[in-house]
């Protein structure tokens, strides 16, 4: 095994020096080292533990401790490596075990109490089947007879993992593993190319911004390259603020060098010597991993002055985001890096002409950067052969909500939504009915059952009133109230509105109020004015939404009404049920529920009458009680306290 020595460039030992040479295609005499680093050949049991944020949340920390104590107790010499997550959230924590000469096996739900059985099984060769997710296909290794393969599992079978390729199988703290797997070759290659050719190659590949806007990346770069300036900046937007998206976190935690290489390629292409990574503070592990990656790249001479003797200088600095959704907008993000309030400004001038500190700046998303090494290595034509006419490559989706297999899914553009939800995701939890899926976070829209066959790309989503966004897919079933979902997003947006322009600041607040009124019990309306306000709100909500969309300053405001517009478009009947029938069909809007006490089942214990906060329940001891609906505020306390299940909800 190669020494874990990355002190400084000139301090690299001979093997690492040779390894560094492989970046330029010189593989002489390193076959054994590369085989070891890429785990084609392991000499002792190797255990990979997924300790990304979601793995830790599922108990991977305890699993890791248990594995170490098991190995110590049995005096087994093994390598235990912490890796990022594979994206199999539903079966976390996951571990992988590779015995010498054998294929690697992925274990699911490997909590601390199953560790012993798994490890005993691996050591004896008699692996308990129920703990296995699958074995990783590798023809150079001996496979386990009768064990299913990971790539045949329905969650994996339709996926094409390019961005996530290394996540979960590479040690994110080791640059040598990344290089042994072909890392930084793309960076070395572009350093020998003309800048304009790099931009052209990326443009030709058809890569579009993965942060949601879908602007051609190569085009953006060309603008910045052609702008005359003494200093240019490359910025990585890793502020993944869309609730429901976590692919960027997974990439940075699991394969930080992939992002770093992408940023370096981009910085070279536009002629930037300084790059910033705006990484949200809510992702402490991602920050730690990326800091480590930057340090290593410096030690290996892949960052800093005169990189690989080409005269190109590059520094990458991490800026921690401070928790403002609007900072996902590029001009707001730039203000935030400058130490100001993260408020957007009108464009033009576009950042590519005048951005950070007034200099040409390109802002790209993590996933966009993570695609670059592949494009350079395999060529624009290869990349352009994946996907649809106007949307090339793959897209990572974060699948969550009421679905059986939550997790990270990377599929070619143009994959049918139905396949993602029902084949990969395994359908809806508890055999409930699918109702809709929210795509693109608060700025996106809901897609209903009748459009499940849509083939996802940037354009097709727009036809159904949604947008790609960053690729969060939150699945909803019949128990989810779409009015409540719209209200949830409005609440989020109005809190996150930066307050600079009036349509967004005032409009989103008013829209939230309208939704609150229609999801509230009428008992809460004490005056006629309030009733009138509810009526007016219903009449004007669509118009208000259109005005906000047309007149807001930035992307956040312009897309703020989307949750309402898209739920109104596809689930109008639910709004009508709330408004006309005062009922929530999904039973989610608590305040609209009606409560009744069954005279047969009520024993007259009086507990409900005593606990009712508004004194709406009347009745004598040992006599059936009744609820006065005029006073009831539908808080549900009576249900909670009744020992006889006599309170019925309608």
């Amino acid at each position: 095994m190669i020494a874990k020595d990355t002190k400084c460039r000139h301090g690299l030992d001979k093997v690492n020096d040779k390894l560094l040479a492989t970046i330029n295609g010189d593989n002489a005499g390193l076959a054994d080292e590369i085989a070891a680093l890429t785990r084609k050949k392991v000499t002792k049991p190797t255990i990979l533990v997924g300790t990304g944020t979601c793995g830790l949340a599922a108990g991977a920390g305890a699993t890791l401790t248990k594995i170490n104590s098991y190995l110590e107790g049995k005096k087994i010499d093994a390598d235990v490596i912490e890796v990022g997550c594979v994206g199999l959230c539903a079966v976390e924590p996951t571990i992988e075990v590779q015995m010498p000469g054998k294929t690697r096996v992925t274990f699911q739900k490997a909590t601390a109490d199953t560790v012993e059985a798994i490890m005993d099984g691996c050591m004896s060769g008699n692996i308990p089947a129920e703990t296995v997710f699958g074995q990783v296909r590798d023809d150079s290794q001996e496979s386990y007879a009768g064990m299913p393969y990971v790539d045949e599992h329905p969650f994996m079978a339709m996926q094409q993992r390019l961005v996530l390729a290394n996540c979960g199988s590479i040690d994110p703290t080791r640059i040598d593993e990344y290089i042994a797997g072909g890392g930084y070759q793309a960076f070395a290659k572009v350093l020998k190319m003309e800048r304009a050719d790099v931009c052209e190659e990326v443009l030709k590949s058809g890569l579009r911004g993965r942060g949601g806007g879908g602007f051609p990346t190569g085009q953006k770069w060309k603008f910045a390259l052609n702008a005359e300036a003494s200093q240019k900046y490359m910025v990585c937007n890793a502020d993944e603020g869309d609730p429901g998206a976590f692919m960027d976190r997974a990439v940075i935690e699991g394969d930080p060098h992939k992002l770093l290489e992408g940023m370096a390629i981009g910085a070279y292409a536009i002629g930037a010597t300084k790059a910033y990574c705006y990484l949200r503070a809510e992702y402490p592990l991602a920050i730690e991993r990326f800091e480590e990656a930057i340090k290593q790249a410096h030690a290996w001479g892949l960052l800093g002055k005169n990189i690989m003797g080409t005269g190109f200088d590059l520094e990458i600095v991490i800026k921690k985001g401070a928790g403002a959704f609007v900072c996902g907008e590029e001009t707001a993000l730039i203000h935030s890096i400058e130490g100001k309030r993260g408020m957007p400004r009108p464009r033009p001038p576009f950042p590519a002409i005048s951005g950070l500190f007034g200099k040409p700046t390109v802002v790209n998303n993590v996933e966009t950067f993570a695609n670059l090494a592949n494009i350079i290595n395999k060529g624009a034509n290869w990349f352009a052969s994946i996907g649809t006419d106007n949307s090339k490559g793959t897209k990572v989706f974060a699948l969550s909500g009421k679905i059986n297999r939550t997790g990270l899914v990377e599929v070619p553009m143009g994959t049918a939504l139905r396949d993602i939800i029902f084949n990969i995701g395994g359908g809806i939890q508890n055999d409930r009915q699918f109702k809709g899926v929210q795509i693109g976070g608060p700025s996106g829209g809901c897609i209903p059952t009748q459009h499940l066959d849509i083939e996802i790309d940037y354009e097709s989503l727009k036809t159904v009133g949604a947008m790609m966004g960053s690729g969060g897919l939150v699945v909803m079933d019949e128990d989810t109230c779409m009015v409540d979902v719209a209200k949830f997003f409005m609440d989020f947006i109005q809190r996150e509105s930066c307050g600079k322009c009036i349509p967004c600041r005032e409009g989103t607040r008013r829209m939230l109020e309208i939704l609150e009124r229609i999801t509230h019990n009428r008992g809460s309306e004490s005056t006629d004015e309030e009733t009138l306000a509810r009526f007016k709100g219903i009449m004007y909500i669509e118009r208000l939404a259109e005005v906000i969309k047309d007149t807001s300053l930035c992307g956040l405001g312009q897309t703020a009404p989307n949750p309402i517009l898209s739920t109104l478009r596809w689930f109008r009947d639910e709004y009508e049920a709330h408004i006309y029938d005062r009922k929530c069909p999904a039973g989610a809007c608590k305040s609209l529920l009606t409560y009744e006490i069954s005279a047969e089942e009520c024993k007259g214990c009086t507990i409900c009458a005593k606990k009712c906060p508004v004194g709406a329940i009347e009745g004598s001891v040992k006599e059936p009680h009744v609820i006065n609906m005029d006073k009831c505020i539908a808080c549900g306390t009576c249900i909670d306290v009744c020992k006889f299940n006599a309170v019925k909800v309608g």
Partner: protein
Amino acid sequence: MSTQVNEVLKQYPNAGRDSLIPILQDIQELDGYLSREAVIAVGEHLNLPASKIFGVATFYNQFTFEAQGKFHIQVCRGTACHVKGSLSVLEALEKECGCGAGKTSADGLFSIEVVACIGACGLAPVISINGEFYAAMDSTKVKEVIAGYRGKESA
């Protein structure tokens, strides 16, 4: 003003405006919150009026101006968590801890912060207490977890 604030400022010699947010983040990490004195000291260091600094600090959700509890609870209110019932998790937490969202309990033990998304959507609803994650929460589990922390404290 604590000596810690001075220590932070020393690490940013000749700092410009773009160091403001990192400085505030470092102070909050050490002190748990931004005190009035700390903000004024930062202003003197960066040659900026305190009002500008409050303007920036109040803009971002990360900064708080009240001391946090011994156990700081982050409740994820992202979409996936919402769909899976994070509101009732938050309500249960408020009841168990005896303080509302954004506040610190009277005994100084707990403080609750609502965050937009922790990024563990596959395991929703999620909360994190002093950096330790708890997945697939519901009101019963909240009771157990909080009782556990209380137990630890009185033990």
